[in-house]
């Protein structure tokens, strides 16, 4: 099946090189990718995820505000009864990974991540979330 993925920028961080590149590489890998554009609020990301009926939400955060913003997106999604996996890509120090996991982030990807690994992780998370063992 074809995964539908929402990639999103939240907060004030205008760095979009990574999100643009990853969107294209995920499309190359056969996924349907929707990009929110810059400067979204957690609520608008959640609303788009529901409206677009996506299978997974990927946040790109390079400003260092991931501990503040990523949990807000998870909360906003859950408030809309949307339980798709949420992942974060960006500059995530090792020490922050556990806190993000506890806040409901399913996976994190740092600089230099391989697209093959990202694709495999997305598929695994989707299978786990839908109870589909593939």
């Amino acid at each position, binding site marked *: 099946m074809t995964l539908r993925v929402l990639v999103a920028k939240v*907060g*004030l961080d205008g760095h979009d*090189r990574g999100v643009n590149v990853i969107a294209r590489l995920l499309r*190359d890998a056969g996924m349907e990718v929707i990009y929110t554009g810059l400067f979204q609020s957690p609520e608008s990301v959640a609303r788009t995820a529901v409206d677009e009926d996506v299978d997974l939400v990927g946040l790109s955060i390079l*400003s260092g505000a991931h501990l503040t913003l990523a949990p807000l997106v998870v909360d906003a999604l859950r408030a809309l009864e949307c339980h798709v996996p949420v992942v974060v890509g960006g*500059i995530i120090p*090792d020490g922050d990974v556990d806190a993000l996991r506890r806040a409901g982030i399913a996976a994190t990807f740092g600089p230099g991540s*391989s697209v093959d690994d990202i694709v495999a992780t997305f598929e695994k998370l989707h299978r786990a979330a839908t109870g589909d063992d593939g």
Partner: protein
Amino acid sequence: MEQVSSTSERRANVSTSNERSRWREAYATSPAAGSHATTLSGIDLDPVYGPPDAEYPGLFPYTRGIHPAMYRSRLWTMRMFAGFGTAPETNARFREIIAAGGTGISTAYDMPTLLGLDSDDERALGEVGRCGVAIDTLDDVSDLYDGIDLASITTSMTINAPAAAIFAMFVANAEDHGVARAQLGGTLQNDILKEYQAQHEYTFPPRPSLRLVRDTMVFAAREMPRWNPISISGYHIREAGSTAAQELAFTLANGFAYVELALRAGLDIDEVAPRLSFFFNAHIDFFEEIAKYRAARRLYAHWMREVFQARQERSWQLRFHAQTAGVSLTAQQPDNNHARTALEALAAVLGGAQSLHTNSFDEAWTLPSAPAARAALRTQQIIAYETNVTQVADPLGGSWFVEALTDRIADEATQLLEEVRDMGAGSMLEGCLAGIDHGWFEGHIADSAYAHERAVQRGERLIVGVNAFTDDESSPPPPIQTNASGEARQRERLDRVRSERDAAGVARSLAELAAQARDPERNLMPALMDAARARATLGEVTQTLVEVFGRYQAAPR
């Protein structure tokens, strides 16, 4: 050696008007005249090498550098960029940099400040003081430069959308501390065009933003002889993923757009041009970067003389700051970043930079720690004082490879420049605006970024520690702890300023600002300075202008 120079002497005698003899005259009046240099082993070094008919530094079109003897006359400014947390914290870092021998300071602002938001704005949550220093009012600016002699050191401010308001706070603060505006030396980045193209920290739509740029340019031209009101920045274009030629072309296009803007405002080309400075990336492809800087000077000189009809030599000379490439640094095996930064800095120096920031090795994952920032400055000092590369101007000039690469990058950039001009039906300013409207710049940059990343993913381009030689499992140390209470303390400070200021005076100054903003002929700098002195916040000033100018919304693509 002897042979070569005596051959040149003979040729010089045949034709006294050749380039080498013209260089000799320029050199004789330069600060380096009569200087003497040798290699480590004692071999005498000329200030420059080349046959009589070659291009020479200090002479049009300045491919080989803007000064006849380059760094023998004057070293580049070692300008280190810093900013985090609150103004007092950044002030302490500035003092460390100056104490360590840094010769200029450069301020990094946090995201809310870059977007003209106050620290207590709900959109600023989690971002206050994180990527730079938080500035809300004139009092923060006063803390930021406390104890630093603004009349002697030059300051640089990396701010764009709210540049005019921050500049007004800076000038007002300096005057309040007894330094006249005419004494202030430094640079405001103030390059809003590249924000729409690459960096995306914009607030107002392009045309009103350009009106603010115009106001700062006119103000500086009239009142601040030591101030560069704009630093046209390719750095962010390159970091966003462009090629070297795109970086050069888009930056020059933006520069020419600002020249047109200033001419429309009634300034003379020779009044404007000497105050323009550029800011380029120093990336990891060593020779390509050197060729890029050489091509930049050559193209700029021709355009300024032939297209814009500048008459003074200084107007033809492209001066630039360089910063090593943040994107080239890796979080994997972080110690390797020292080598990357050193090589990139060397390219900037061999390419003739006027000032340089070297990234700290830890910037791939955090704000630089003080020891890392010091090591980065030391990297510049090693290049300046140990390697001897400063003794001979444009040492790679005449290399068949570097000359061919210089020509090639100049050609590619020229084609792109002509495309921009065509989009604007002959106007570079209109061409840049049209290119922004159509996503032309962003499309080019995104295509290049994608091609690069695909090559990395396929292993066609190797990055040590990332997709090659990954055996070493060293991982980065934990990030610098920006004081967790910084955001709260900054908000408290802002609350205090709000409660202590004269509210009626603030309201009056903002009403006056709004009234003047509605009249496109008015220069807003005096009203912005009045608002700053009344302790209007950056967010209030920005919101006042948003109500007149509107807010930019990028078109969905």
